[in-house]
């Protein structure tokens, strides 16, 4: 391959990596806000817990490729493009975040929670001062799993025109071009490893003694 081809490939890698990051960052932030929010509500209302876990479980069991496909024909949220990709990535990331938020909060020692309430904490203070700080390592572990999976799953977004590093991989597969496949796969793997390491660091930092 001559220099011109390399340059073009490098340009593609850079712009598609950025696109990939946008897909991941936007879907992950929506998933974090929704997952943690619904998770907190779930610890207050049993019915919300049952429904939310059920829904998140259902989304999780649908193979990712099929989930992208399912959304395509749905009006408003479906169609070809980034929006559909982001929505399916959100649905796909919800379960680990939701589940770990619930597990983290309900895992706080009941006697500690009771002592805090007996001191005169309101429910909001209990959440802010006791439950969330103590549940934080568990919640971050859930976000870590969601984020790393999300970076991998976002590759498939290319199938429905969502862009990202999957474009290179699918193009490479179609044209039997190992270089292109690797040009997509290696940055995707690096992103996943980087996210994993960063989240691991945050998780350790959030641990109370």
């Amino acid at each position, binding site marked *: 391959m001559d220099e011109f081809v390399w340059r073009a490939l490098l340009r593609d890698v850079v712009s598609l990596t950025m696109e990939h990051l946008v897909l991941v960052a936007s879907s992950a932030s929506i998933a974090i806000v929704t997952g943690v929010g619904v998770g907190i509500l779930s610890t207050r209302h049993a019915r919300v817990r049952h429904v939310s876990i059920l829904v998140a479980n259902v989304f999780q069991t649908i193979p990712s490729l099929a989930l992208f496909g399912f959304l395509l024909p749905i009006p408003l949220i479906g169609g070809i493009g980034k929006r559909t990709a982001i929505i399916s990535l959100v649905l796909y990331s919800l379960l680990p975040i939701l589940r770990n938020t619930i597990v983290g909060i309900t895992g706080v*020692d009941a*006697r*500690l929670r*009771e*002592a*805090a*309430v*007996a*001191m*005169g*904490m*309101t429910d909001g*203070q209990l959440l802010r*001062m*006791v439950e969330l*700080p*103590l549940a934080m390592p568990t919640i971050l572990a859930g976000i870590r799993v969601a984020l790393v999976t999300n970076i991998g799953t976002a590759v498939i977004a290319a199938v429905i025109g969502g862009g990202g590093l999957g474009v290179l991989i699918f193009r490479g597969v179609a044209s039997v071009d190992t270089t292109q496949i690797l040009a997509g796969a290696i940055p995707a793997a690096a992103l996943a490893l980087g996210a994993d390491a960063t989240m691991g660091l945050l998780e350790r930092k959030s641990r*109370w*003694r």
Partner: protein
Amino acid sequence: MPERPFLSFANVSYHAGEHLILDRVSFDVFRGETLVLLGRSGSGKTTALRLINRMLEPSAGTIAIDGKNIAESNVIDLRRRIGYVIQEFGLLPHWTVLENAALVPRLLSWPPERQAKRAEELLEKVALREFSGRYPNELSGGQRQRVAVARALAAEPLVLLFDEPFGALDPITRHEMQQLFLSVREQYQGASVFVTHDVLEALVLATRIAVLENGKLEGIFTPHEFVQAQTPVARAFLSTLPSNLKPGPSANG
């Protein structure tokens, strides 16, 4: 003793489902007093304590503090005005000793300097000033309980509740904690209720001892009366003391 009781139970009952845990219990606690609730496990003493800060609500009867029915007060405000010390697990593990001691002032939104000043003052009192930056798991069991006592006192509570706070401590530390309790008690103007199943502890700390059995009040005695009491549970508790150590009639509260 002053005329008006500071904390009073009037025919208080508590049901948990079918079970009657407390059966028409009545007693009064006056300012400056320590009422010890003595009874075996399951006698209802902890339930009685938890009715005072409304962690439980009575099925019948009324509880009043300073003449006001607590059922009519705001439950959050009430709890912030009641100091509560329990066995273990009370301290927030992710907060320092100072932050733990300042918890209730913080909930009451005192200015931060005043919170810190008050917490330091109380840590001084329980001889833990130099530990203020540590976390609870860096303290011994006795030190943790001293932080819990400081925390309970921080916002000048109306009533102090102790739920077997020293039960898990070794005898020497327990003795030190009891002495600390007595010295704190001297300067404290409100009423205290102390739950224990340890008859010696009851005799050391109480101004009066209320004996509970199966949710019923068997009797209320001064320590002096208690050692001569003829009621069955009081006798049963006294019989656990080695005979050569049994407090004589000269014992006073």
